C-alpha cells in the first residue's frame, strides 16, 4: 500500500469536483475490494475520496413503477429491503449468493458494479497482466485458467466479472445513473461493463471523473418466476464458476417473456438476445430450456482448463430455468442445490 491522502466528499457535486481535480484519486465506498487491491499494490490511488456518507442510501419508487436504488445502499440492506424482497426477489437472491454477511454489510451497490476481476494474476504484481499493467501480457492465457471466461474473451484478457448482484441487474434490465463533470447521464446495464478487447484495463464505460449515484430497476420484477443459481467450489463464500439468473413470465404454460443472464463466464454479466427470443412463445419445459442454452453457448470457447464450464453452464441454465418456471427459486440459505 502506498501513502495516500484521505478526504471526504460533502455532496455529489463535491465528489465530482474532487475526482476531476485529482488524477490519482479514487472513490472509496465500502472499501471491501479497493482496500484489498491497495494492500496488494494493485490499486495505487494517491487520494481516497470517501463517499460513504453521501446521502445516496435510500430505495425510492419511481414514477414509472420501478425502484431507484442509491449507490451507497449496503448490499445487505438491499437484499433484505421489503420492496426488493417482494418485487425483485431475483436481485435479493443474487446478492445473498455473494460474499459473506460481513462483506455484504460493508459493500455498496455502486461498489459492487465496479469490483474488479478475481483473476489471481491480476492480484499478484509479480506476474504479467494486461489488465493491471497494459501491454505486459496475460498470464492466464497459458497459465491456470480454470476459472476464466468461455464467452467474449480476447487474446489480451480472459478474465471474468465476479459479481453476483450484477447478473441479476443485467437480467432485470437495470439502468445505471451517473454524474460527472459534464452532468448526469443514464447508462443501460448492458452497456455499463465492457468486453476486454485490447483494452482489458478498462472494465466499464464509466468515465474516470464520473460517480455512480443510483441504479434503477424498471417495473417488471419477475417476482413469480425467477431463480438465481450459483455453482461454485464450496457451498458458500466462493466466487461463481457459473451462475445463472433466470426470470420468466409464463401464461398457460407458455413463456411470454424471458430473461437469462450468466455470471462467471465472461468479462461482463452475459446476456444473449437470441437465446431469450428463442424462449418466448415456447412451452416452459426442458426442451425449450435446452435449446436456449445451446443458443447462448453456441460461441463458447473454453480455455485449456475449463471446458467443463460449457457443459456446466448448459446444465445450470436448464436447472435455473426449471426452478424459475416451477416457482421454486434456489434458496440461498439451505445448504443444498435444489
Amino acid at each position, binding site marked *: 500500500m*502506498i501513502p495516500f491522502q484521505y478526504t471526504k466528499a460533502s455532496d455529489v457535486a463535491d465528489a465530482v469536483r474532487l475526482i476531476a481535480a485529482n488524477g490519482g484519486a479514487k472513490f472509496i465506498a465500502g472499501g471491501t475490494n479497493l482496500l484489498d487491491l491497495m494492500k496488494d499494490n494493485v490499486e495505487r490511488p494517491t487520494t481516497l475520496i470517501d463517499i460513504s456518507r453521501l446521502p445516496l442510501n435510500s430505495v425510492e419508487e419511481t414514477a414509472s413503477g420501478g425502484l431507484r436504488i442509491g449507490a451507497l445502499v449496503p448490499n445487505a440492506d438491499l437484499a433484505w429491503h421489503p420492496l426488493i424482497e417482494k418485487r425483485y426477489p431475483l436481485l435479493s437472491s443474487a446478492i445473498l449468493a455473494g460474499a459473506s454477511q460481513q462483506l455484504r454489510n460493508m459493500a455498496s451497490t455502486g461498489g459492487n458494479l465496479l469490483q474488479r476481476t478475481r483473476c489471481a494474476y491480476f*492480484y*499478484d504484481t*509479480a*506476474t504479467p497482466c494486461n489488465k493491471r499493467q497494459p501491454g505486459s501480457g496475460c498470464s492466464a492465457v497459458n497459465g491456470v485458467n480454470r476459472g476464466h471466461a468461455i464467452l467474449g474473451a480476447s487474446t489480451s484478457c480472459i478474465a471474468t466479472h465476479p459479481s453476483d448482484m450484477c447478473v441479476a441487474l443485467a437480467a432485470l434490465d437495470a439502468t445505471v445513473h451517473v454524474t460527472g463533470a459534464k452532468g448526469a447521464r443514464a447508462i443501460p446495464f448492458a452497456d455499463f461493463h465492457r468486453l476486454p478487447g485490447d483494452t482489458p484495463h478498462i472494465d466499464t464505460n464509466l468515465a474516470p471523473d464520473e460517480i455512480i449515484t443510483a441504479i434503477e430497476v424498471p417495473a417488471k420484477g419477475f417476482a413469480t418466476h425467477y431463480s438465481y443459481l450459483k455453482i461454485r*467450489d*464450496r*457451498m458458500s463464500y466462493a466466487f461463481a464458476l457459473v451462475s445463472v439468473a433466470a426470470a420468466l413470465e409464463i401464461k398457460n404454460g407458455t413463456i411470454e417473456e424471458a430473461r437469462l443472464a450468466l455470471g462467471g463466464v465472461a468479462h461482463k454479466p452475459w446476456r444473449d438476445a437470441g437465446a431469450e427470443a428463442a424462449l418466448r412463445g415456447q412451452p416452459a419445459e426442458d426442451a425449450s430450456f435446452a435449446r436456449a442454452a445451446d443458443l447462448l453457448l453456441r460461441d463458447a470457447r473454453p480455455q485449456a*482448463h475449463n471446458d467443463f464450464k460449457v457443459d456446466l453452464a448448459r446444465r445450470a441454465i*436448464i436447472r435455473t430455468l426449471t426452478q424459475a418456471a416451477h416457482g421454486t427459486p434456489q434458496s440461498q440459505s439451505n445448504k443444498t442445490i435444489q
Partner: protein
Amino acid sequence: MSTPNNTAKAYTGTPTSRVDGRAKVTGAAKYAGDFNAGGLAYGAVVEATIARGRIARIDAGEALRVPGVLDVITHENRPRVADSDEAWRDDLAPEDGSPFRPLYDDAVKFNQQPIALVLAEEWEIARYAASLVRVDYEKQPFVTDVYRRRDDAIVVEKPDKLRGDAAKAFAAAEVRHEADYFIPTEHHNPMELFATTAMWEAGGPLTVYDKTQGVQNVQQFLCGVFEKKPNEIRVISPYVGGAFGAGLRPQYQVVLAVMGALKLQRSVRLVLTRQQMYGLGYRPATIERLALGARRDGTLDAITHEAVGTTSQFEEFSRNDTGWSALLYASPNARYEHRVAHLDVPTSCDMRAPGAATGVYALESAMDELAVALKMDPVELRLRCYSERDQNEDLPYTSKRLRECYREGAAAFGWDRRKPEPRAMRDGKALVGWGMASGVWEALQVPVAVRIAMTANGHAEVSCAASDIGTGTYTIMAQVAADSLGLPIENITIHLADSTLPSAPVEGGSWMAASACHAVIATAGEVRSELLRRAKLMKGSPLADAVEEDVTLSDGKLVSRRQTDRGVSISDIMRHAAMERIEKEKTNEFAQDKAHARNTHSAVFVEVKVDEELGVVRVTRVVSAVAAGRVLNPKTARSQVMGAVVGGIGMALHEETIYDHGLGRIINHDIAEYHVPVNADIHDIEVIFVDEPDALINPLGMKGLGEIGIVGVAAAVANAVYHATGVRVRDLPITLDKVLGRRQAA
C-alpha cells in the same frame, strides 16, 4: 501404579470446558503479535518473485529514504549468524540437507523466499517501504511440479527386510487392483498469522514471543543461529491460534525479528501477511501408487505402496506415507517405498497426521476399489484382512479396538441399509453415496517434565514448557492436576510455553496430552509423598503408620484410601511443617516397551449427496468412531475429532495450493481463493469414542487424539462419491469438474 483419587468428583473422564476459554473469547489471551514494548519497531518482509536464481542487485535506497524507515536488512548487511548447518538444525530438521537460512546469501531457492527485512517506526511505513526495494535477479531454470520429477525422486524410506515377494504375489493374485492417487500441496492456514515480537532490553536477555509449537526448540535454535548462551534468549508462546504442524519448526519470521532486534538494539515485531504464509512449509504434493492382490475370499496376498512426495532442493523432509499400508492389514507379502522429489519450493513440513492423512487416503481408496472388484462389502473386506498384530514389526498392540470402531460406527451410521451397487441410492435429484475408510495413527509418548508448586491454602501452580496449540493442553493438565492433588480445578493454575519452564519437546504427533498428563500424575505423586512424610511427623497423626500406597489426596486433605475420614488437611500438614509451599519436579517415566506396538485407530463412515447434473458434492453425514485409549475430556476430545473431520472434508473436496508451474508460483495465496470448508459445507458429524482399555501404555491408559480424526476421512468421502456416482476420482480435491468427468490436467 498411581491413580487419581477416587473419593471426590473426578474431573478426568468428565466433559470439562476449556480453562482458557474465557481468556480467549474476551481477548485477554495474548498471542505472539499482541505483546507491546516501548520503542517497538515493526518489520515487513520483501519476498523473492522468482523460483530460482540469484539476486544480482538489491537496492534499498528508495526504501531507506522513506521517513520513519530505520533499516533495511538484506544478505549484504545482515548481522552475523552461525554458518554451520548444525547450528541451523532445529529439533525437527531433517537429518539430511542444509536448513534454510533467511537473508544468508544471494541465492534464491524458492518463490516467496524472504530476501529483505524492512524495519520502521510503524508497520504501514515498513510495508510501504518494502514495496520500494528494487531487486534484479539472475534467473535459473526451475521445476515445481512433482510429476516432472517423479522419475528422479530419491528413496527415503523402505522396510529393512522385505515381507515375502509382493510383486510375485500380486502377479499371481486372483483379484488385483492397481492405481495412482494424488494429493496436491496443501497449506495449514491457521487462523493466527506467524508472528514474533522480540523484546530487546539493554544488558538483559532477549525475550521472544513467538508463534510456535515448541518454545524450547525455538530457544535452542536461536541460541545456535545467533551464537548466544542459553540464558541470553528466552522464548514464550502462551497461546497459539492454530498451527496444525506449521509451527513445529522455527519459521523464518522468528529469525528475522531477532536479527532486527539485535541490529537495531530495539524491540521488533514481525507479523507475516496471509500471502506470506504460503512461503512457509506445507503438506507435500504426493503421488501414491497402490497395488493390492487378493484372494476371492477377501484375504490379501500382496500390498505394494509406493509414494513420491515433495521437498525443497536443500532439505530432505518426508513422512512415511507408505508404511501404514503394510502395517494395517494382514498380508503375507508387502512392499513399501517412499521417495521424495526435490523441487524449487520451500521444504515441506508436517501437517495434521503427516504421512497418514495422505498415505491412508490412498490405501483406503484402493481398498474400496478392491472391495468393488471383489463384490464385497467394504467393511467386510477390512474384517477379512484384520490384523491383531502390527504387521511390519510383528508385534501385539497395547490395545487395538478397530473392530469395535467398525461395528459401532456402522451401527450408528445405519451401514446395513447400504445398497452395494453404485448409483443405487437417490434423494430427489441427488445421487446418494455411502463410503467408509479406516484410520490409523501412532500413540507416541515423549519425556515431559512438570513442576508443581503447592501452597498451604490449597492452590497449585503447574508449570511445563509444552505448548497448547489450541488443542486443550491447559485444560486437560488442569483436570489431571486437580484430581491427583485433590483440589478443585479453580485452584489450579497452569503455566505453559515458556522456555525457562521444565522441559518439554514440541507439541505435535498427538503425543503431548498423554505425556504431559502422565508427568502431572508423577509429579503430584512426589507432592503427596512429601506431604505424607510431613504428616507422619505430626503429633498424634492419624496417618502415623500409613504407607504411600495407602493414601490419596482428596478434598484438600491427605487421607487414607480405605478410610477416607482418617486424614489431615494439607494446610495443617504444611503449617505444622512450617512450609509455605511444596515444590516438586518430575518427568514421566514410560517403559521403552519394544514388545508392543502403540497406535490409535478409527473407522469413518460418510454419506454424500451428489447433484447428478451439476456434479456438486455435499457431505451430509459423517460418523467417526475412534479408539484412542481412555478419553480424559470428552468435550475437548470431541471438538478435536470434529475439527479433524472438517479438515478431512476440506482435504477431500476443497483444499489445494494451486501452482502456476510455468511461473513456479502459488497463485491462490489467500484464504478467499484457497478453499477450506465453510459452515455451509458441513452437516452432521457424530463422534464415537470406542471403549479401549489399555493397561500397558501409561498409568492413565491414554493415547493422543489430535490427529487420528483426520485420517481416513478423505478416502471415505472419495469412496462415497464413487458409490453415489460410479465415478472414481483419484486426485484430490474432488471438484465438480472431476465428478462430471471433465477435468483437464493443470
